């Protein structure tokens, strides 16, 4: 079909993710979505800031937060951001197998991050009895960090289904925009985490 051919040209254009109108639309649409996400997380951060000292005689932030695990989680997520940059680098060079490799590493780092987060939450609940219901601070903490974790989980499902779907197809102008939008979304998750470790954990530690 002529149409499929147009999606598999002899030489890939310079920016395969923006070569088609559909690609341009996806690119713009995802950026705009991230603008909205900024407000979504701002509302959660604002709620957290308003309630961070409302511990209702339960555990307070400086008593329970440990910096070690958070540091590991931060490194995992920051590195996964770099690996997805590498994946996009190989996409622009039309090197499909390397792109898949780097996206795979990104996904693994994301899984590692999520595992640490689940361990962290379980630790707070069993060790300190600090739950979603114990105080307004607890509700705000689990909601903010949990929303971020949910975004990570969604990103993981996204990239894994992209990798499965395109395992045998190679790069073309139909799936390049999809990989690219995922990578933008993943960077944004990292952006949110930078504010979470700063505002929630570091500021929580100093009280």
């Amino acid at each position: 079909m002529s149409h499929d051919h147009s999606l598999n040209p002899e030489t890939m254009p310079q920016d395969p993710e923006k070569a088609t109108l559909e690609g341009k639309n996806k690119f713009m649409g995802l950026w705009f979505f991230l603008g909205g996400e900024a407000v979504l997380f701002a509302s959660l951060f604002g709620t957290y800031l308003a309630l961070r000292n409302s511990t209702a005689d339960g555990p307070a932030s400086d008593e329970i937060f440990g910096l070690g695990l958070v540091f590991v989680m931060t490194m995992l997520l920051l590195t996964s951001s770099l690996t997805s940059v590498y994946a996009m680098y190989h996409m622009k060079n039309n090197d499909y197998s390397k792109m898949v490799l780097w996206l795979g590493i990104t996904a693994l780092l994301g899984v590692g991050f999520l595992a640490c987060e689940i361990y962290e939450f379980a630790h707070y609940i069993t060790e300190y009895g600090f739950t979603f219901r114990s105080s307004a601070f607890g509700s705000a903490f689990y909601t903010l960090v949990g929303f971020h974790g949910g975004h990570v989980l969604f990103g993981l499902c996204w990239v894994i289904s992209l990798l499965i779907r395109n395992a045998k197809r190679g790069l073309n102008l139909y799936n390049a925009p999809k990989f690219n939008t995922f990578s933008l979304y993943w960077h944004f998750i990292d952006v949110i985490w930078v504010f979470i470790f700063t505002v929630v954990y570091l500021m929580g530690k100093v009280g």
Partner: protein
Amino acid sequence: MPENTSTNSTVKAYQKKKNKDEMKKQLIAFASMIAFTLIAFGIVATESVDKMFLIPIIVIMAVVQVGFQFYYFMHMKDKGHAMPATLIYGGVWAALLTLGGLGLITWW
């Protein structure tokens, strides 16, 4: 025809080199992000800075780090990003207003 392919391949080589240079910048951005993170965790862990200065310092470092993320990793510095940048800054503005509003409850 051979001429054509050769020009094509030189363009490709040029493009490859450009992508490579770009990648170097990305690595520098990544290194500085890691550095900022280490400093932030470091000064909190060692309690070496007075609390009054500590919070502004770590918040500023987070903002700078996020700037790297947006401008380098997400390519907002490149051409064709005027609209995304406008909408992101719009979102940041609305976000700041939201934070200000909810901050009113506790700080005013």
